[in-house]
């Protein structure tokens, strides 16, 4: 069963087609590598899967459905609310001074009791005198602006990175993107964010849920750091870690999300042979935890050593796919890497 199925995916930036009609099925609980020369569109493929880029064409289905914000009744409620508030605000902005004069100023005698009922009826009178000009038109214009603005923002953020992340796709980056001013432990805890139930009020007032979740999540984070062998570095700032440790910390942060699919973008880049061996072991044990791994890598030794399947991209197109042995001997792949003889 495939966990991720990409069909006919095209990503275009202006005139440049970075990924062209790529179809790819990632079977569950396997290690799949994407290889190809520089500029082949591998990272663009990753960015499309994680919702950073919107595909120009084609579908990316994760667990059988597209990772997009669903349109639910709460969405329409939210849109209606924004429209309503925007409409009423514009009514208020347009009428604020005369409304204040008729309802408040003219009804209030200094230090006498103020009759709110009189103010309300004065305000109602003010609007009923000329309902179209004073209420309906500004309300409609404001409502329309609010509604369309909110809808546009919602539409444009339907396929956002956090939606893909919450669906269960975690990733690391080609150029390490840790939170440098946070400790290693905090980096991992941030990866756990979507599983936490603490809200602002719990945090601000230190309600019991905060304490419970704080201890529990810290314990789990330490477990994950232990898994990638960074336990001793837990309280160091991420920027002070060595390069290899930073790479592993990024994997730990992604694992903290409890993903079903883990995308690793060149995890072995810049590592020495010993570190690379350790990394391969780590990726194997991640797969053994039941997490599907999709990997971009240039280290052929790593790719051939751990991949169950390999897909080869060149100039944005998929030119080969199969087991390591099949790909290795595929003439098209050899041509893409070494050129035509």
């Amino acid at each position, binding site marked *: 069963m495939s966990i991720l199925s990409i069909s006919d995916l095209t990503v275009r930036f202006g005139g440049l087609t970075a990924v062209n009609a790529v179809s790819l099925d990632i079977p569950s609980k396997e290690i799949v590598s994407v290889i190809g020369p520089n500029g082949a569109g591998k990272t663009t493929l990753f960015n499309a899967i994680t919702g*950073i880029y919107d595909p120009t064409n084609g579908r990316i289905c994760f667990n059988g459905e597209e990772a997009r914000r669903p349109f639910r009744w709460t969405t329409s409620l939210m849109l209606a609310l924004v429209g309503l508030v925007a409409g009423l605000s514009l009514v208020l902005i347009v009428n604020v001074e005369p409304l204040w004069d008729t309802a408040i100023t003219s009804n209030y005698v200094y230090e006498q009791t103020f009759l709110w009922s009189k103010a309300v009826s004065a305000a109602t009178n003010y609007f009923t005198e000329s309902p179209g000009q004073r209420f309906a038109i500004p309300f409609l214009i404001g409502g329309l602006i609010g509604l369309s603005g909110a809808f546009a923002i919602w539409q444009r953020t339907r396929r956002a990175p*956090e939606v893909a992340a919450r669906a269960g796709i975690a990733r690391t980056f080609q150029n390490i993107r840790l939170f440098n001013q946070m400790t290693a432990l905090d980096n991992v805890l941030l990866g756990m964010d979507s599983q936490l139930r603490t809200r602002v009020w719990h945090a601000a007032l230190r309600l019991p849920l905060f304490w419970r979740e704080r201890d529990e999540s810290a*314990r789990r984070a330490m477990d994950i750091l232990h898994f990638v062998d960074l336990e001793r570095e*837990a309280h160091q700032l991420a920027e002070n870690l060595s390069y290899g440790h930073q790479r592993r910390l990024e994997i730990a942060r992604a694992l903290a999300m409890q993903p079903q699919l883990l995308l690793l973008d060149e995890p072995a880049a810049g590592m020495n042979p010993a570190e690379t061996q350790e990394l391969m072991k780590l990726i194997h044990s991640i797969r053994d935890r039941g997490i599907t791994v999709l990997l971009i890598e240039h280290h052929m030794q790593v790719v051939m050593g751990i991949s169950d399947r390999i897909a080869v991209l060149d100039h944005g197109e998929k030119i080969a796919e199969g087991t390591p042995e099949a790909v290795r001997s595929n003439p098209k792949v050899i041509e893409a890497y070494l050129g035509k003889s």
Partner: protein
Amino acid sequence: MPAPRRILFHWSFLVVAALIPLIELLLPGHPQVGDLLRPIFIMAILGLGLNILTGFTGQLNLGVAAFMAVGAYSYAILTCDIYPFRLGFWSATTLTVLVGLTVGLFLGLPTIRLRGDYLAIVTLGFGEIVEDVLKNLDSITKGTQGINPLPAPSWFGYHFRAETYQPWYYLFLGFLAVLVLLNRNLQRSRVGRAWISIREDELASSCMGVNPMKMKLLAFALGAAQCSLAGALWASYLGSSGEPGNYDFQVSIIALCIVIVGGMGNVGGVLLGALVIMGFNSIILETVTNFLKAHQIISSSNVFTSPGSWKYMLYGLALILMMRFRPEGLLPSRQFKAEAHPNEPHSPPTA
């Protein structure tokens, strides 16, 4: 729980601050240092509000004075007896905070997708708009004359008076202490972590499942609420809403100086920043000017020789020097970071 040593440190700070008015009574001549500390407390609250936005979340805001103005004017309208509302101090303050929250959301919603310089420009414009609206909405805000007089706050039947500053001092100190506590709690929680991650790398943060729009809106709302609380306290302190010109760009810049000089993203740093910047402004500069005038070293007719006229230049110089030599501020947050989780399994740092 924070380490006992640091708890002790914070409490001793609070105790010292609480004792200042009492110590003054014992000293000869009754120096009123606490009186001068009141505006510092209020500016510290303003700085804390800005710190949520700029320090934690990394959203540069150049219009916090507008939030302060909204707070001051809402408080004035709700309490002043030329309007029918005539609320007491506590209910008016609560409502003001809610108004600030709403205004923060209103500004946050349309600007939520802007980043960096663009957001700074929009907030700058927002500050100017609010000032202009307050100037021109004559019938409600009384234009450039401001709303006054405001009744003094009261607590359980005790009415504050302008002559005795001590009750005010404790009122503002209490507000500041509560806000420091709330801000620290937020910083060391899931919320603060998400804010800081957005400051560090918004894309990575959203790839980890944090919804940046939601968290930024939250920061906007909470920051604006705190700034408007500072405005309400300021209005009650002045006994007037102040005129719209009191909430101009310079106030926003002073708030920014407080956050930057103190140390971005660190609550304790903001307090120190407020003490340094405002202390310099309202204590040192005044004392120096008075001293120079008393000894006839400078004449009051020549504005160029008065140190007070040079203060914005000195702020600018301080900012440049800070950026050059200590960009992380006087009390940066990173030292605190490593200590932030002492309760969890901890091993000594490797050599």
